[in-house]
């Protein structure tokens, strides 16, 4: 392709990615050439500004007509914008945690990497969110994965950190392979890697063999991607990795990486398999395979909530809780209700705030106690009422108690599951039942906070940055819980319910 075509592209729609990319490179160079003695924390702030800049640029892109460049490999539609927002906000908060993160054995000499790897991962996620081609999807996915592998093991001298990284790599590799294998079949049948062309071509398939192959591909891709969102059956890495990884990384994995996972799942399912007819030809493959999705969703919810009951380590417990939440989201995906995307977006948003808030608090509490046992929360409300109250609000939100964003999100998913015809009664009941189970461990933490006595009564060194994170998260949780229409109106006005999505 010659220069004109290249220049003819409307590059501005890639601004966020460019910004992040730029900052990532900048950081790496600075890290390389800055004198050793200078504290690398400054880079963290730089990264943060980068993310904020990207966020702003996304806002400027709001409402722009869907566009795609580079032969439809990069596509900016409302879906992309909406989810980029989530990713960037999540990343920004994570970065704030990262800035004030200080493990026992210092990580000064590679603190720089710490930050720009975050950016690299974020870049991958952003690309995924607006990629219109299997290849770009894959690249984005891998970019995210590879940087997360390293991030998980960033505490070189910390055995659990290394181990978690190792486990993450191996599982990640396997999942990638499986996903790719599925993708290769999809490519083989459709003869293209471009989602748009696929969407155009696939409905014409009639050959049963090909459909069967596509079904296989569906399963492989689904299982492969269930790794990213930590859903059954590919969930088991999550607890170990979450526990071993440095806390900001855990937060990153449980929020940004999970969001990215759902982005790619929605992209692929909606734009590929939704268009594949099933062998009867009456409905689409996607819908005829709903039950399998339902099984996965159910299993995920049960596993996550049930095993979380026994956990003593707080990070591990929240690993399981995040598995459970992946399950809830899968319910929405399974139901394929007309407002699937809104639902997912809102829930991911709510989940983002409540989870990050919780991790912020965990970071403070565990750092000062340098133990990750739940008992560290004993008598928290005496040592720091602020943390205690914030934590309980966030926990209530996770448990889906009214007045919080979590409740609205669940309500939304729930309605999606019941509004479709036929309604998914069983799945809905399972959702609600497992939610009740989840009360036990969420309230268990609150029991620690309010009913138990503290070993030490010393106050916490509450760094302002983390304080801000907590405040933002709690505020968002409550506001979205009480005035959800803020979010819903925003969705409806800006994204006109994602009509421009390739289907």
């Amino acid at each position, binding site marked *: 392709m010659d220069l004109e075509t290249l220049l003819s592209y409307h590059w501005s729609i890639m601004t966020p990615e460019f910004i992040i990319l730029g900052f990532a490179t900048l950081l790496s160079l600075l890290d390389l050439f800055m004198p050793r003695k200078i504290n690398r924390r400054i880079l963290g702030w730089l990264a943060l500004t980068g993310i904020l800049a990207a966020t702003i640029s996304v806002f400027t892109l709001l409402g722009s007509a869907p566009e795609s460049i580079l032969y439809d490999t990069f596509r900016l539609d409302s879906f992309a914008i909406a989810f980029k927002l989530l990713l960037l906000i999540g990343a920004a908060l994570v970065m704030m945690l990262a800035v004030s993160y200080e493990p026992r054995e210092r990580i000064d000499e590679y603190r720089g990497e710490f930050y720009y790897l975050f950016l690299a991962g974020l870049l991958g996620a952003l690309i995924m969110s607006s990629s219109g081609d299997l290849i770009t999807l894959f690249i984005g996915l891998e970019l995210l994965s590879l940087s997360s592998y390293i991030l998980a093991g960033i505490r070189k001298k910390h055995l659990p950190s290394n181990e978690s990284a190792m486990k993450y790599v191996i599982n990640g590799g396997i999942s990638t392979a499986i996903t790719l294998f599925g993708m290769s079949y999809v490519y083989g049948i459709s003869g293209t890697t471009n989602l748009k062309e696929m969407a155009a071509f696939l409905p014409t398939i009639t050959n049963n063999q090909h459909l069967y192959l596509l079904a296989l591909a569906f399963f492989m891709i689904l299982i492969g991607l269930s790794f990213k969102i930590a859903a059954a059956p590919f969930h088991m890495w999550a607890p170990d990795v979450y526990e071993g990884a440095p806390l900001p990384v855990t937060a990153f994995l449980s929020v940004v990486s999970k969001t990215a996972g759902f982005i790619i799942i929605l992209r692929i399912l909606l734009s590929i398999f939704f268009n594949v007819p099933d062998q009867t030809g009456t409905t689409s493959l996607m819908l005829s395979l709903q039950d399998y999705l339902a099984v996965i969703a159910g299993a995920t919810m049960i596993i996550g909530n049930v095993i979380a009951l026994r956990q003593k380590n707080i990070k591990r417990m929240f690993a399981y809780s995040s598995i459970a939440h992946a399950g809830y989201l899968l319910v929405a995906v399974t139901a394929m209700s*007309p*407002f699937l995307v809104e639902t997912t977006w809102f829930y991911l948003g709510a989940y983002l705030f409540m989870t990050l808030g919780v991790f912020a608090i965990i970071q403070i509490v565990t750092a000062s106690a340098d133990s990750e046992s739940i008992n560290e929360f004993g008598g928290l409300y005496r040592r720091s009422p602020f943390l205690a109250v914030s934590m309980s609000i966030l926990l209530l939100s996770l448990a889906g108690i009214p007045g919080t964003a979590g409740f609205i999100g669940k309500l939304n998913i729930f309605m999606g599951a019941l509004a479709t015809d036929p309604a998914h009664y069983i799945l809905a009941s399972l959702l609600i039942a497992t939610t009740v189970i989840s009360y036990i461990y969420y309230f268990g933490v609150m029991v620690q906070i309010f009913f138990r006595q503290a070993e030490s009564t010393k106050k916490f060194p509450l760094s302002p940055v983390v304080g801000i994170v907590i405040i933002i998260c709690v505020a968002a949780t409550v506001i979205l819980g009480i005035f959800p229409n803020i979010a819903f109106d925003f969705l409806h006005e800006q994204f006109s319910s994602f009509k421009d999505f390739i289907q």
Partner: protein
Amino acid sequence: MMFPYYLSLLVFSPLIGILVLVFIPKVKEPFIKLIGFLATLPALILTVIAYIAHRNGAELSELAEKVGWMQFVNPEMAGKIYSIDYELGVDGFSLLMLMLTALLSTLAAIASIHIKKEWKGYFMLFLLLEIGMLGVFAAENLILFFIFFEITLIPTFFLIGKWGYFEKEKAAFKFLVYNGLGSAILLIVIMVLYARTGTSNIEAIMSIMASDSDHLVVSAGTKMGLLIALVVAFGVKLPIFPLHSWMVEVHVQAPPSIVMLHAGILLKIGAYGLIKFGMGIFPDQFQSLAVWLAVLGVINLLYGAFLAFIQTDFKKVLAYSSISHMGVVLIGLGALNAAGIQGAIFQVVSHGLIAALLFLLVSIVHERYGTSDMAKISGLAKSMPIAAGILLTAALASLGIPGMSGFISEFMAFLGLFKEMPVLAAIGCLGIIMTAAYLLRAVLSITFGEAKRENTEVNDVAPLEAIPAAILVGLIVLIGVYPNILSGSLTSTIETILLGMGG
């Protein structure tokens, strides 16, 4: 008659107290208690004003409020307008319940003088609980109802778990899980209705269901299923026979001032829900279910009575007697005629008062004797004659001595049932005898007999304790002597219900 947002003000008036309490240092005990008490007054005053105005012929519909709240889906996208509004409103019945709630809250606040620690937290939760309860009765919208319903859960959990007795945390969790499940089932019902009808306004749903005679909106089977689910959901609260074990524990472990509210109001929410939603939304199905409700009622009545007969802890006796008395409510509902329903509603109110009175006395006695074990207390009539007198009065009211409210409700409920199913009613009458048996056994063993030596040097009821008791006794007698004071405001409600029944 009223200014706009009357109900909102009414429901959220305790919030003022909470906000004030935030800024009060937690050591100022008497001041905190005073605030806690005062904060319950506005609601009481407002309800009383509304009630009087209503008695003087003011239209309750003037009180209705409606504000847009959330909009799940883009209106132009989905066929139905999946929106949820903030809607409050009252009819005669719910106004009555509101008044009962406000009153008991005030009295319970007075009875809270015996709380030993953490007054600040206690009263904040206490007021939050009151908001929840008031909201439940003021909500004109299923989802709003559910939200308030859930809101009552949280403070109750903490109030039991922190200020309760020996096994408080176990009781708190039992409460949480049982009621969590109950409300979960309730949520399913609500969301199915919502998803099917597209609205959550109770009136609207009622009219849709009424017009949906040939089951186009909801299939007949589903309706039955929903009603049964509803009965189970509210059956947990009420509680109905196999679902009651949590409530015994709560009655025993929770602080008496909270049990006043719990037995007085929270249990009644079950009855309220059954009447308002069960009868209102599924009239036809309810009719076919009525027999079973009556049977359950008789089972409750006898089961509770017989178990109360062999308890050794006075609180347990009262707990089982509550179960037994809720049986009367079910009997009334099962009868499904004017007398029965009115009896049920009367029982709801009267048992609310009586149970509150009894637990007020429990708190008084427990304060003095440090136990509620009937073997350890005796000769109360000698050591504290006034308390003994009131206790005896309460017991007599509870076992249905004419001239007190208990008799009226029992009489009407049975009057109703005898018309429909005499034999069952006759069996139920056994309960009347048993009630006398176990209550006298319990109360006489406490009040009568030789006063134990260590029991003699206790001082009798203090004025501050006497006031609420006096008020309650006054109301109990007032209703007993001139029941029309209540039945006046109920006629319209009952007529509408029976109209829905088509008879």
